């Protein structure tokens, strides 16, 4: 009876306040070794596969990777000049500068044991500077955002979880929408899209950066189908996430260069000004 009451009180406290967060964090830090052990079978099987790969296959793999690097490098050369041009144009328009983001590679070490609660665990934590709300990508697109950080691990909520939504825009024409997860790893849904919106099957949706949580311009999903139903106020748009939500093992954590670009420089200049006025008279 006492335990039941205590549990109910705990649920209430955790629901309304955030005082229990450090407790949760320390317990999850304690659980880290178990996570490591439970990941061992996968690591070992990958290791043995690597050991038994033949030399020829490895040579082939290296050759194809070199070719890929060459293609990507030529693309990134172009990207540098395009980014510079974009910034010049944005300056002409008096818009804020296009920010460059840094990324850190991280590895997936655990997935949610509960299929209706879609998160993954990555091997970087607060010691690596990970913070709650940070965006996580794989090589194809947006994966999700960090929702919980302990010392060595963080929990990432996938964009396909039912509680998750990403502001997106169509890459072709900039139509804005919000992509909701539906609890299915291979499907998202755009809600409240007017019947007249210019969205077609095959369109690429990129993150719009509205709301300030996700960096803008990363691919999120591609449109699979749009169905118009005369009886319903909105079009039904089904989209498939670009990221390999259930396959990718190496992920990227996005670190914006200046996490709060509008606020920080202003404050430092004010401080400088204050200091000078103190000295001068």
């Amino acid at each position: 009876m006492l335990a039941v009451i205590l549990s109910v009180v705990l649920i209430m406290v955790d629901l309304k306040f955030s005082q229990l967060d450090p407790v949760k964090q320390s317990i999850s830090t304690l659980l880290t070794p178990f996570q490591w052990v439970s990941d061992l079978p996968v690591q070992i099987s990958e290791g043995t596969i690597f050991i038994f790969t033949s030399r020829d296959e490895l040579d082939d793999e290296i050759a194809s990777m070199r070719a890929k690097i060459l293609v990507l490098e030529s693309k990134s050369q172009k990207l540098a000049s395009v980014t510079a041009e974009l910034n010049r144009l944005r300056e002409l328009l008096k818009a804020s500068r296009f920010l460059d983001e840094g990324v850190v590679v991280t590895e997936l070490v655990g997935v949610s044991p509960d299929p209706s609660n879609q998160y993954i665990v990555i091997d970087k934590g607060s010691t690596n500077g990970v913070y709650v709300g940070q965006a996580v990508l794989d090589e194809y697109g947006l994966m999700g955002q960090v929702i919980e950080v302990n010392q060595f691990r963080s929990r990432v909520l996938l964009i396909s979880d039912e509680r998750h939504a990403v502001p997106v825009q169509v890459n072709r024409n900039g139509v804005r929408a919000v992509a909701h997860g539906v609890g299915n790893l291979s499907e998202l849904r755009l809600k409240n899209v007017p019947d007249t919106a210019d969205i077609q099957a095959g369109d690429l949706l990129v993150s719009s950066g509205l709301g300030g949580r996700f960096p803008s311009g990363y691919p999120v999903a591609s449109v699979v189908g749009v169905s118009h139903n005369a009886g319903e106020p909105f079009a039904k748009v089904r989209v498939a996430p670009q990221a390999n939500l259930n396959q990718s093992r190496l992920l990227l954590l996005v670190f914006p260069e200046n996490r709060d670009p509008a606020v920080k420089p202003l404050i430092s200049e004010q401080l400088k000004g204050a200091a000078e006025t103190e000295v001068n008279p």
Partner: protein
Amino acid sequence: MISQASWLAILFSFCIALVLELIRLPVAISEFRPEWLVLTMIYWTLRSPMTMGLGAAFLVGIILDVMAGTYLGINSLALCLVCYLAIGMHKRFKMFPIAQQAAVAFVLVLVHLVVVYTFSTLLSRAEDGWGIFLSACASAFFWPILVVLYDRLNMGLRL
């Protein structure tokens, strides 16, 4: 079942259960994941309710909550209820044949999952709940194996 339990065996079994609980399964069979920690807790409560009672159930529930990322207390509430039921029947349970034991384990795990499902749906999200039957079935299927394993463990580690 013998009624003494060694602390070493209890600790060891919970470590095994934790690792099994966290292990990665392919997406196709992830719905069939048995509730290893709940099964382990039920096993020890039935074997020796004096050493592993409601307090232990509460602690294990908290660990489950942290692992699943749910609100703290949901799993501990469910596990306390399950343990209460288990303590009530632990004397009869020892006489049951193994198939009947598995059936009882199925019901207990189902009670746990239903309570967790009810609370998490009440507090945060609506979800498809049929998966809990698959999970409970898988738990019942693994119960006999678990009993044999833990009995051996307990015999081996008794001091």
